[in-house]
């Protein structure tokens, strides 16, 4: 049993105490115990990072055009594989979620429809799910 008297660990505002409980990365990335808005926030960040990665990859792929037809044709041959098409579906999911949730965040962020933001999120996600399903079918069935 620890018998030492209690001491303040953060004497002044703005200074780091000996035992800061600021959760850092876990504070936003840990989904445990989070509610709908918190989960949407986490997913929004992750899809944002994913889209950023995709754009980087996209630029790298486009640079293949500068290397001539053989390099481009080589990429196109693997772009039609089922695994690659599955990545396309994941990409569409990321774009849809980030874009549709972004509509909610933008409207709410300017004080609009704040009281209905949860219903708006659900409605937007329903729209997104339908669009994702259509896109997935198109991705896997289009010639």
């Amino acid at each position: 049993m620890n018998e030492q008297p209690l001491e303040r660990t953060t004497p002044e505002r703005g200074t780091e105490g000996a035992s800061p409980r600021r959760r850092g990365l876990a504070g936003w990335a840990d989904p445990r115990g989070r509610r709908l808005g918190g989960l949407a926030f986490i997913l929004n960040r992750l899809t944002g990072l994913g889209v950023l990665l995709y754009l980087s990859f996209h630029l790298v792929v486009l640079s293949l055009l500068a290397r001539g037809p053989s390099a481009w044709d080589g990429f196109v041959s693997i772009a039609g594989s089922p695994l690659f098409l599955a990545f396309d579906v994941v990409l569409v999911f990321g774009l849809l979620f980030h874009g549709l949730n972004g509509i909610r965040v933008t409207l709410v962020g300017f004080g609009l429809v704040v009281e209905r933001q949860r219903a708006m999120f659900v409605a937007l996600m329903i729209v997104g799910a339908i669009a994702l399903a259509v896109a997935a079918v198109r991705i896997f069935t289009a010639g």
Partner: protein
Amino acid sequence: MNAQLDPAHDTHATADTGVRVRFRVYRYKAGDRAGHFDEFSLEVAPETTVLDALVAIRTRLDPSLVLRHSCFHASCGTCGMRVNDTEVMACVTKILDLGSATVKVEPIANGALLGDLATDMVDFYARLAAIGRPLIRESEWLPSSIVPEGIEAYNRFESCIECGLCTSACPIVATDPRYIGPAALAAACRAVEEPRGLDPGAIMGLVDDQQGAWRCHAAFECTEACPSAVDPAGAIMALRRRAASGRLRSLIGGRHA
């Protein structure tokens, strides 16, 4: 550490329900390099709250357990904690309602610890004080008082019990100590909309800032965590609307609110 409570001698947390719950309680003492969890086993009744159990643990098993509480009915705001990763008032959270055989109890996050489950609230209060911490005087609610028209719209901001659950749940406070935080912004909204002698312009100067209302990312965790229905997220969005409309007016030649 494992320990067991004798149900026959406890007045708070036990009953003959046969429901035994394991508690993993966060421990930290000043000078420790890091916190850890101690485990306790209690038999609990349907009405047993998390605070009941913690008081029983401290009374019967480990008097070194540090926790803060007072009213036992979610009015004083002192027993806010993270229970199974969610911010709650321990005094009104029934253990069996959690539906978990193991209950993890931690102090509220994003502040410094005094010890175990007690968090240093100085920073939290300082942020409220910077806003002016508006309060409605009790005299204004006496039957003979003249209550300002429309005051009901602002009443919810008076319900803040300063428990800190909103700042604990906020994912932005978790990563950026410069952010004013949801509690102070809710107080700011109240002060701006109904100043009572405070300077709304000065408060908007604090709020209309990248570390003010614009730092929020609309996760609404603060509103979900609030035990008093203050709706800090709604207040933050109202402040944003006010700030944006003020800037728009100033752009077209009007006066900034």
